[in-house]
């Protein structure tokens, strides 16, 4: 076994990047395994694109190192990296046909003309664009251009494929379809994908693991489920999905659960224990709308808060309730409309007094 097989496939070690006095990326360390789809998720200006450009070789890190398959990438120019990029604008060469675009990277490979043509045909087949081989980029649709860009980036069989907002330029319907297509192409080629996106849904469905970034730093790394169910900070909890959070204070531990005093509730609730928090510490209690139950009677279990239905929005498959608490705070709760019925069959209506309940395991306590 060689050394390169022992370590992680891609290792980003304490990488920072500054442009003048602006620090775009701060001390990022990540590892990505071979064959993974890894997403860098964050708002605009969070440093995700800069990190991607450092992987491609367009920017050199100000400090820190990047290892790909055991090889230090410092000083390696973009044209010598086994890393290809699918640009957000696709960056197809407008003066070349689809086939020439796909063949472009192969010019630098030692292969015969027949081998090259075969590879181009194989790639066009992979993205189902064989009938469009002779067209110019301006003669095909946006979705087709996206597939040409993908075929071009995959043609040289890169070790790592970087995708910069791969679905941002597509309309909603096409986006969902393309998402699954990307996943199936990744599975067939086995190439490691790193996807940069600002769209949490895109990251959740595409990626095996997600790194959530904010202000140049990685806030949390984990699987979509870990990121959603077990966020480690207010930023991550708020960035992924909707959530209602309250100021709270830890009062103690009972039966392996954390007792938390929530002034907005006017009561004490029990939550899943979090390592590192101490009695008396100020924390945030965060609740996902779909983890709350709404009922007319006080629910069983330790966590129950009474309030009044202030607002309700009916979406068909579910309804969103906004419950106002005696303290004036508002809580969002989702109710799935599992049973068919008219308005009269609703659990609660405007101005009804209701009880909110939640499982201790569903309550998220955030120390930072």
């Amino acid at each position, binding site marked *: 076994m060689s050394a390169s097989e022992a370590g992680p496939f891609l290792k980003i070690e304490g990488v920072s990047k500054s442009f003048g006095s602006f620090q775009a990326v701060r001390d990022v360390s990540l590892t990505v395994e071979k064959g993974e789809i890894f997403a860098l998720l964050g708002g605009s200006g969070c440093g995700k694109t800069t990190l991607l450009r450092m992987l491609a070789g367009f920017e050199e890190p100000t400090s820190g190192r990047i290892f790909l398959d055991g090889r230090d990438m410092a000083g390696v*120019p973009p044209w010598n990296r086994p890393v*290809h990029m699918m640009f957000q604008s696709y*960056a*197809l*060469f407008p003066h070349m046909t689809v086939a020439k675009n796909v063949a*472009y*990277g192969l010019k630098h490979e030692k292969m015969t003309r027949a081998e090259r043509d075969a590879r181009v045909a194989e790639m066009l087949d992979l993205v189902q664009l064989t009938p469009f081989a002779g067209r110019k980029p301006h003669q095909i649709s946006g979705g087709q251009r996206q597939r040409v860009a993908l075929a*071009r980036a995959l043609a040289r069989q890169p070790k790592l494929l970087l995708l910069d907002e791969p679905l941002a330029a597509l309309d909603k319907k096409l986006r969902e379809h393309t998402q699954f297509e990307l996943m199936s192409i990744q599975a067939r080629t086995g190439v490691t994908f790193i996807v940069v996106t600002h769209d949490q849904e895109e990251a959740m469905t595409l990626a095996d693991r997600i790194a959530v970034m904010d202000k140049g730093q990685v806030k949390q790394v984990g699987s979509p489920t870990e990121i959603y169910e077990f966020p480690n900070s207010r930023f991550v909890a708020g960035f992924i999905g909707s959530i209602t959070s309250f100021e709270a204070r830890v009062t103690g531990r009972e039966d392996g659960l954390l007792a938390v005093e929530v002034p907005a509730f006017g009561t004490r609730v029990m939550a899943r224990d979090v390592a590192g928090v101490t009695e008396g510490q100020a924390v945030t209690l965060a609740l996902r709308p779909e983890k709350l139950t709404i009922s007319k009677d006080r629910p069983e279990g330790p966590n129950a808060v009474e309030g009044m239905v202030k607002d309700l929005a009916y979406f068909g498959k579910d309804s969103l309730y906004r419950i106002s608490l005696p303290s004036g705070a508002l809580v969002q709760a989702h109710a799935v409309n599992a049973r068919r019925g008219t308005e009269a069959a609703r659990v609660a209506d405007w101005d009804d007094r209701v009880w909110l309940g939640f499982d201790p395991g569903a309550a998220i306590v955030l120390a930072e």
Partner: protein
Amino acid sequence: MAGSRLSRWFDRKGWSDLIVGAPYIWLLVFFLLPFLVVVAMSVATKTSTAPPISWGGEVPLVSWEAYARVFGDGLYLRAFLTSVLNAAVAMVLCLLIGYPMALGLVRVAPAWRNILLMLVILPFWTSFLLRVYAWMGLMGRNSWFNGMLTDAWNVLVPVDWAVRSIPMMNTNFAVVLVMVYTYLPFMILPLYASLERLDPTLDEAAMDLGSKPARVFWDVTLPQSIPGIIAGGMLVFIPAAGELVIPTLVGNASSPMIGRVISDEFAQARDWPMASAVAVVLLLMMVVPTMLYSHFQARAEGSK
């Protein structure tokens, strides 16, 4: 209502027709009609009256003699050849000098770009004639410029080849040099315009796919700037081929360019039919390639 009457008067279809038609009227009055006059003169006969032409005499009233001489007399063909050659050399040199400058303008920091663009256009602020005279002074046998080049020459070549001064004035070299100097901005500006539109991510994409920067230029930048090269080339070649002032002032009188020939036929020889015939042939030489280019350009854009 008066207001609506006024607006109706402004909205009348006649106005939009006039606005659309204005350029055509301009072309008709100031290009096509004068050109037809020149064509008519080219088929007239030379006389000693004033004006020195007539269409009289026997039917068919026109004479093709001037055209016969344009294509029959070596003097005119040589003048055409000299013009085309000088203009072509000037165009190629403008391209070779102008392309890196235009590329530099595009790649330089935006703060510098406007200053540098300004410097490219700055020479237009002084009189063209003054600038040609300045070159005449520089190229003259006794100028410091000529002296400096002579010294450099004498250092570089064997003693036998040493010269007292380099003969630059009244040569085709001088004509090309001054034409390159004069027309360089006409090459740089269209090149800049076409290079500036290019998407820099295409360069990154080519690099990402394994091309070194020189290869990126060859594969991506150059092919996409061809419209700019053609536009700049025509803007230099067409006026350079018909150039009159530069060859008159710094050129070799024994191998004149075609502009000089037209001028001499009109003013010295007072042979208006001959001058007109040469002018018509020159125009056709310039117009036909231009029209072909626009035709292909329109077809290429139509397919987008």
